[in-house]
């Protein structure tokens, strides 16, 4: 069985679903002949033709709106925003229409669409190509927000997202698009949405994260283990709706929680997890919740971007603070 990268897993999932569901179409800028600027749609044009692999005009407003129209009229569009920083022109369509189509028509019309976008910093890209804007979407009723962090989860969660009857924002952590390969059987098996994945068992502290930051968080857990500290690592994977039970169960065991994300801290999605811990796990906690996040600044241009992003050292230090507090 072939070993594939995260981006190849995205392609594999798209190809599987297009082969098995004729209503699935892919659309976006450069998704056709060019196969997407990151090659996520490589080979799909040859397999499925220009009617299902649609190069749109260079206009995010168009992509956002026709995706809603396609989805409401019986298609399952998978739209690509070339970078997460370009998705803003689609926000009105996503928020005012996709997310509320089912509700405002009492279920008469629905919007089973997926918006994919390469997401996050750390690839020395130009301005507006490195945002972590997931929290904009987690505040919108009616959406699902999914952020896979491995080839297998990218494959299984993208299949689940396309099959989901409601709109899904599917952010792909571009920093780890080609970080490593793993075996991902091309069997069409979806992974469950709305559940967190426990990537490493531990008993002293819970590290909660998502996206590319899973890499640093797992490395931090390894570094902590070398010092005799047992860290549990949770990949949230689906931010909305949030599987808080898995996080709570872990914190019941460890009594400590560090939330790691690269988006700005204030009203980042870590705030929501922290608030729920305060509401539901206050008496399980033996130390204050820690957040290791991007600063409340714009992510700097790339000479400084790695200093903006959470690092292994910052995560280890936060974990140790929770241990020192109790």
């Amino acid at each position, binding site marked *: 069985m072939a070993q594939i990268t995260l981006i190849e897993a995205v392609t594999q999932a798209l190809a599987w679903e297009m082969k098995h569901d004729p209503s699935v179409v892919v659309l976006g800028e450069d998704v056709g002949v060019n196969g997407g600027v990151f090659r996520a749609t490589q080979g799909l044009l040859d397999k499925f033709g220009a009617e299902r692999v649609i190069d749109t*005009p260079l206009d995010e407003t168009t992509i956002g709106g026709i995706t809603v*129209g396609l989805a409401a*009229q019986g298609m399952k569009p998978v739209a690509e925003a070339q970078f997460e920083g370009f998705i803003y022109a689609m926000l009105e369509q996503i928020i005012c229409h996709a997310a509320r189509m089912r509700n405002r028509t009492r279920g008469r019309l629905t919007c089973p669409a997926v918006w994919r976008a390469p997401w996050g910093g750390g690839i020395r890209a130009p301005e507006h190509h490195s945002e972590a804007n997931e929290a904009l979407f987690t505040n919108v009723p009616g959406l699902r927000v999914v952020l896979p962090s491995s080839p297998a989860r990218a494959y299984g969660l993208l299949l689940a997202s396309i099959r989901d009857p409601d709109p899904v924002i599917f952010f792909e952590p571009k920093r780890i698009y080609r970080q490593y390969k793993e075996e991902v059987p091309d069997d069409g098996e979806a992974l469950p949405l709305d559940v967190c994945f426990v990537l490493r068992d531990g008993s002293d502290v819970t590290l909660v994260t998502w996206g590319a930051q899973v890499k640093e968080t797992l490395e931090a857990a390894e570094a902590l283990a070398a010092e005799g500290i047992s860290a549990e690592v949770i990949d949230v994977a689906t931010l909305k709706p949030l599987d808080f039970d898995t996080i709570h169960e872990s914190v019941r065991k460890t009594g400590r929680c560090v939330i790691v994300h690269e988006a700005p801290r204030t009203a980042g999605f870590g705030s929501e997890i922290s608030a729920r811990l305060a509401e539901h796990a206050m008496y399980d906690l033996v130390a204050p919740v820690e957040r290791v996040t991007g600063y409340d600044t714009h992510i700097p241009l790339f000479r400084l971007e790695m200093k903006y992003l959470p690092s292994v050292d910052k995560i280890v230090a936060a974990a140790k603070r929770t241990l020192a507090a109790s």
Partner: protein
Amino acid sequence: MPTAATFEIEYVQYLNAEGKLVRDDLPAFARDVRQLVKLYQEMLMVRIFDTKAIALQRTGKLGTYAPCLGHEATYLAIGSAMQEDDCFAPSYREYGVQFHRGVKPRELLMYWGGDERGNNFSGPAHDFAWCVPIGTQCLHAAGAALAFKTRKEPRVAVCTIGDGGSSKADFNSAINVAGAMTLPLVAVIVNNQWAISVPRSAQTGAKTLAQKGIAAGLECVQVDGNDLIAMRTVMDHALKRARHGHGGMVIEAVTYRLSDHTTADDARRYRSEQEVKDAWMREPLRRMKAYLMSLNAWTEDEETALKEQCTKYVDGEVNAYLETRAQPIESMFDYTYAELPPDLLVQRDEAIFWEKRG
């Protein structure tokens, strides 16, 4: 000097403001007087509904309402030209189109009366619901048109937008992609001269709004939107060519908003009485009535009887609307997702708890 491109925008009118034919090439449908009478009756029904809806708002029985006074010919032409399988994407005052397509007055009142069930209407199930964010519906229609084209279905998507809305990116994006992909999209700009308080002249320097479609590669035409015969003729043409794969069209229907923008607006603040008085001389019902009477196809007695009949029907619909009860509290949750996630179920229980406590 060499010329890269030239274009002209045709203006179509059959019936002038006095109800006299200005050309002699009447299309087949317009030679069938019974059909014209029927459409006139529907226009009158829309007007009676509109008047009643405003009265309901003024007496606190309806929320903010967007009237359509003066737009009746444009809307009935669109509605009667479309097939049931075609897809309509309205903005928020196209009552004539919707009634013709089977939406009930009580359903429209439900929506403006603060109840989502109004959008789950009796018209074609694939038609889009009201669209308040200006212009965004044009891209839904373009997406629908792309779906039809992809599935090789002989269906057309029709969107309507105002003169103000034609300034929006969404409208321009929709007609652009329709041109680029040869989509079966008919975009009707209902130019009623006013975008709330901002006049048509402040929207664009373009001489016509129709010509915006030229840049998108679409066929474009300007029509007297108060002339049902002209508007229907142009719609028939647009739908036919779109249905046969020849691409989209932009139609500018020139009309006038005789009412306020909505019941929350006071148009006296920004336009003259004289302008409105003049517009009443060009309005659509007056000229169609004159035309039908000139053919001996309509009488004042019939008009009086029809008005009574329409009033009775609308009153029945109003009563049906007023008799509906608000949805149960859990309805605000139940359509958020196909299947409610656990955390939302907890909030749903919370809402039910407070509802029961009263």
